[in-house]
């Protein structure tokens, strides 16, 4: 607990200041202050507080049960093209915002996934998740979604390969927060 406070003192100041500001806004009926809380903060918070604890529980369970050798074999350093396809399918089945992808990459890295596949995972996660694509088709149409997916795939694979080249002989690490 002490460690959490020490590492996050700035965040705690922001949170405390915002809590005080919001409480004061409601007390005095200051409507811009009330709007920041109800229209923006609360809607984000609601999404996050339901989704993230479950996500982290799954990661904790994954950490305990998943066998490193298997992960390394399928999406590790020598996994090649099949590894890329596997990672893309894995990320397409995910839900949630970008910051939900980082804890998963921590797990993948710890279990031996390659640098390339970690970044392909992030790329595919933020651009071609299936739940999001269905939403996109609804609002922007088939043509747009199809074109975007088609151009996005090669670019995230290229960036993944690039990131691996950049960190090939350097110390690469995904830290536990």
């Amino acid at each position: 607990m002490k460690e959490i406070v020490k590492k996050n003192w700035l965040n705690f100041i922001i949170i405390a200041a915002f809590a005080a500001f919001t409480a004061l806004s409601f007390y005095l009926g200051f409507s811009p202050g009330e709007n920041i809380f109800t229209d923006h903060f609360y809607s984000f918070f609601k999404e996050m507080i339901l989704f993230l604890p479950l996500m982290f529980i799954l990661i904790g369970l994954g950490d305990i049960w998943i066998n490193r050798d298997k992960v390394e074999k399928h999406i590790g350093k020598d996994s090649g093209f099949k590894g890329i396809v596997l990672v893309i399918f894995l990320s397409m089945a995910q839900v949630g915002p970008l910051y939900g992808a980082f804890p998963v990459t921590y797990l993948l890295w710890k279990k031996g996934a390659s640098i390339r596949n970690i970044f392909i995972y992030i790329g595919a996660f933020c651009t071609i998740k299936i739940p999001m694509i269905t939403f996109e088709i609804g609002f922007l149409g088939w043509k747009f979604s199809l074109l975007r997916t088609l151009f996005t795939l090669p670019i995230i694979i290229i960036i993944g390969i690039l990131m691996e080249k950049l960190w090939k002989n350097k110390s690469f690490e995904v830290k536990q927060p």
Partner: protein
Amino acid sequence: MEILTIIAVVAIIVSFIANRNKTWAGIKKGLVMFLKILPAILSVLILISIVLSLLPNELILKHLGEEAGITGFVFAAIAGSVALLPGFIAYPLSGMLVKTGVSYPVIAVFITTLMMVGVMTLPIEIKFFGMRISLIRNTLYFFGALLIGFFIGLFYL
């Protein structure tokens, strides 16, 4: 969301049947990680809320429309990089922007940068990857997003 809940519940039950102690250890490990990252996420959400409430939608529209020209693309790329909107807000907003006259290429740049670049979430990303990797990833994805927007644009000329 419902899917995630179902997956999590099933995973916990299966894990619990297989090994009770391992399951508790896993759940505890996950929740400790969650508590460690929670302060950073809360303060990011607070900052986003403040910025979003200062930037009304009409202002965004004015700078993304046809008459904005190339600056429309620049503005879309910056807005997309900085903003953090969940899909259920971003897509209806984009659909609305298209109806009011913003072109598909501009929307493509906005959507791709929105999804791939996270300036506001950098403090969270840095906790996992460190400063250097996070900055390089976001820079590469920024240009990648512009490129994707450009290619999509070719099909809407």
